[in-house]
């Protein structure tokens, strides 16, 4: 019996899409250090598709695994699909999270939505300019 599923441990030990996208056009950061979890998502969106995604996370094992899984779920996907990503989908893809760790998947969903909002904001600003 382990604390986490094999999938969580795999994504925690070998996180996918770790890092920064220098020319990202959508960046979202959620959480705070006080609570012990911060996630930052970098999106490179072109032609309505998430061409690239990277993340940085300060947090526990399930926070890192949730970030990693979330990036895998949205990479190469059209925005319409990315917008509907839920924390449940992230948790399910990880074969579940302990109850008290579900907030990590919520954070992953929020980080992506926050990055999408940033992308929309930039679009509007560009349009104004």
């Amino acid at each position, binding site marked *: 019996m382990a*604390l986490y599923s094999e999938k969580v*441990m795999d994504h*925690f*030990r070998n*996180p996918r899409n*770790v*890092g*920064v996208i220098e020319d990202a056009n959508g960046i979202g*950061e959620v959480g705070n*250090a*006080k*609570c*012990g*979890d*911060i*996630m*930052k998502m970098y999106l490179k969106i072109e032609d309505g598709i998430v061409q690239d995604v990277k*993340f*940085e*996370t*300060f*947090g*526990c*094992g*399930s*926070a*890192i695994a949730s970030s990693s899984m979330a990036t895998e779920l949205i990479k190469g996907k059209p925005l319409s699909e990315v917008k509907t990503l839920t924390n449940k989908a992230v948790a399910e893809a990880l074969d579940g999270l302990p109850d*008290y*760790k579900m907030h990590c998947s919520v954070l992953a969903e929020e980080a992506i939505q926050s990055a999408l909002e940033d992308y929309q904001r930039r679009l509007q600003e560009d349009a104004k300019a």
Partner: protein
Amino acid sequence: MIYADNAATTRMSEAAVRRMTSLIQEGWGNPSSLYRHGQIAKEYLEQAREEIAGLIGAQPREIIFTSGGSEADNQAIRSAALLGKKKGKQHIISSAFEHHAVLHTLKALEKEGFEVTLLDVHENGIVDPSEVEAAIREDTCLVTIMAANNEIGTIQPFREIGAVCRQKNVLYHVDAVQAVGHIPLNVIEDNIDLLSASAHKFHGPKGVGFLYAKKGVRLFNLIEGGAQERGLRAGTENVAGIAAMAEALKESMAGMQENAKYITKMRDRLIRGLSEIPHAALNGDAQRRLPGNVNFCFEGIEGESLLLLLDDKGICASSGSACTSGSLDPSHVLLAIGRIHDVAHGSLRLSIGEDITEEEVDYIIQAVKETVEYLRGFSPVWRDLMSGKKEFIL
């Protein structure tokens, strides 16, 4: 596997295992039974009581066996509170970083009308006896301050606190769960009225502990239903566990001086090595701490992920991060010594024993260095600190 979590629990000593096994097999009678087989068990029980009493400077009648440290803490505090209440004294003094067995009992007492003063433990994690003295009032019935902290290992001036309590005629309870068997302690010399201990912290079995109550300090029982322990703790005695506890304590006491010297050397090697990590800080006083306790905060990372990766490298350790406590708040101990939430989440406790080797210590240092660096490599907090967007705390 490198076991560096002796503050959580210790491996049973071979002598304790042998003692326990032999009593489970041969001495399984009920000590309350009058036939020979029961009376033999009773003898084992009383022999253990005598041995344990002798090792801490107490009389056998002053020792009662419990299920462990938490029960002993509960019973000691509840008893002193009831005694106080009978005299119209309902004020208790404790410290902000006690074990939850103490703090939660005090919380419950507050709801029952008691007033509790929690003393500051300062940045070094040590209570000042003069502050205990200043906090004592006419209606103070109990001072309960631990001997050594379970997370940061700082040793409290229990003898001095005890002297203050004696002078002021207030009962003094010591949660000595982390101290018994590890540092010198004597209830007479140290002016202690009530003391809690737990066997599995000194290479004895789990589920067994004891409470020392000085002659004349009346105990009230938490568990009703029998005449065991002179009516103070109902339930058929765990004879094998109690005998094994006595065996383990005897051994710990006999080897204490030599072990403490070696463990302290290894502890200081660990502290020196981990201090090389940038933006890291030792928690609690560097000298006045348990021989085997090392506790650090590393800025920019979170403790649980550190523990999981250390586990992958074969190292068993512990952390005061929120994620390891199952709540959103990090350890109350780290907060009490003034660490703010942001860095308290990145804590690591290593509690080593006499079986650790120098090679293992060096391996731990290397593993922690690598892991902290790796986690910082993709921490947005660390990025902000390095870019100057956020200021370093450590």
